[in-house]
């Protein structure tokens, strides 16, 4: 049966090629991808936004403030519009979609920035490929300035008081979302180790800031 010989030889050759391909693929994917780290702050510092700085109200009944529309953190090059975020059906805070990872969002269930209470703004640390809007958030330190522009054109200035990293399993809900008696801001993003099983970071970074009055 000599006609069978080419088929068998072909199978042998194809098998060897597949083995070679498989081995190459295996060897090429044996390395780890290192974590990217934000470079020290100070790069391309943005100028502070223009607009009147609004001092906190001194009267007993403070005037209501306008909704926030944009966020600027000159030291880490953040300048973003603010989208609005609510709660997901599971009770967790909504986050911007992957396609909107360059935009931060204000949680509409929190006070407006500049009014009494703890206003919440969240943003992604990264996309599936690289840095996102809050990539450098954890390089902020006490005293750094944050500006929020509001729908009426006024700008409210905040100063960082503390930067904390919390395991998500031990997230301090009361400290972050609980009532406070002065105008404060909390910026939230992810940090810490990446869990490939859940495709989530294990920690949250929270920047606490208070209005400069």
């Amino acid at each position, binding site marked *: 049966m000599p006609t069978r010989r080419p088929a068998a030889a072909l199978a042998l050759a194809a098998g060897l090629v597949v083995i070679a391909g498989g081995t190459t693929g295996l060897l090429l994917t044996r390395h780890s991808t290192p974590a990217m780290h934000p470079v020290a702050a100070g790069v391309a510092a943005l100028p502070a936004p223009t607009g009147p700085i609004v001092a906190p109200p001194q009267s007993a009944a403070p005037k209501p403030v306008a909704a926030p529309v944009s966020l600027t953190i000159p030291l880490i090059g953040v300048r973003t519009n603010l989208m609005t975020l609510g709660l997901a059906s599971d009770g967790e805070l909504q986050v911007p979609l992957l396609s909107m990872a360059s935009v931060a969002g204000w949680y509409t269930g929190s006070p407006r920035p500049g009014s009494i209470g703890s206003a919440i703004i*969240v943003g992604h640390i990264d996309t599936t490929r690289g840095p996102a809007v809050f990539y450098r958030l954890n390089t902020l330190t006490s005293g750094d300035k944050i500006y929020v522009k509001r729908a009426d054109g006024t700008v409210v200035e905040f100063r960082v008081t503390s930067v904390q990293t919390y395991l998500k399993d031990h997230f301090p809900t009361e400290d972050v979302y609980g009532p406070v008696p002065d105008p404060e801001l909390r910026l939230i993003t992810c940090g810490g180790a990446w869990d490939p099983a859940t495709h989530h*970071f294990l920690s949250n970074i929270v920047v606490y800031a208070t209005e400069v009055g």
Partner: protein
Amino acid sequence: MKFWSVSTRRLLMLLATSALLLGIPAAATAFAGSATSGTGWIRLAHLSPNTPAVDVYMYSFDDSKAMIVLHHVAYGTVSPYESVRAGDYSVAMRAAGASATSQPVLSTSVTIAAGHAYTVAGMGPESGLRLQVMDDALTTPTGQALVRVIQASLKQQEVKVTLGSTVLSNSLKFASVSAYQAVTPGAVSVTVSAVSAGAGDANSSVTLAAGTVHTLVVLDGASGLEVVSLEDASGSGKPPLGGVQTGFGGTAAHGPGSPVPWLVVIGAGSLLALTGGLRLRRNRQLTVRI
């Protein structure tokens, strides 16, 4: 203190005195902060109806230089909260315009704990004026608002305070403070009426959002009662559950991917090659026989 020897006490006094003489500005200014940075909050109020305006001073413990001075604080005034480092402070009241070094009309000490808020108010009639330290709430039951009432009307010694259909107090006496009450959020009307007839009701409306703390202050107005609503603190009425998923992992460290798919490919290739090889060998044997 009683355990300290005389010499230790003398040494401490000497140190304290020299610190004052050298003008070491220990905590000389109020600074912004929050619970996570070891700070608390304080606000000052004048709620004594027949006491003239005062200057209110706040000192850090053992520091003769005032860190907060509020000039000409009149009856009915409540300051915004100031953020201060946790610790011991004293609050003093002097007649408006009196020298900062004069003997205060009255003073009190207050210990500020990190993450806590306090109201220090001049209360009572002028003849029995006192400084009262109130511990202000900063947590609300989930989905609710907290309200309390300070009764600072001297003309109407007892008042009834209702919030919508909820009675906050049937008979709140002058210079007293009600306990906090948890209420359902919403816009509601506030009514304050004198328990003994003689004065008209004071009406107001207040919007109570979930996760907010409010103080209603009952005052003697130009004619009859007045009520002032203060929003003391505010947070997220519906706090999100747990942490926030704000990353897709593009900047995270990744381990090598699973080798299984490649091993399957190699296995399949081996099988194919083996089959081909065996066939080839059998064919050769057949060829030899023929």
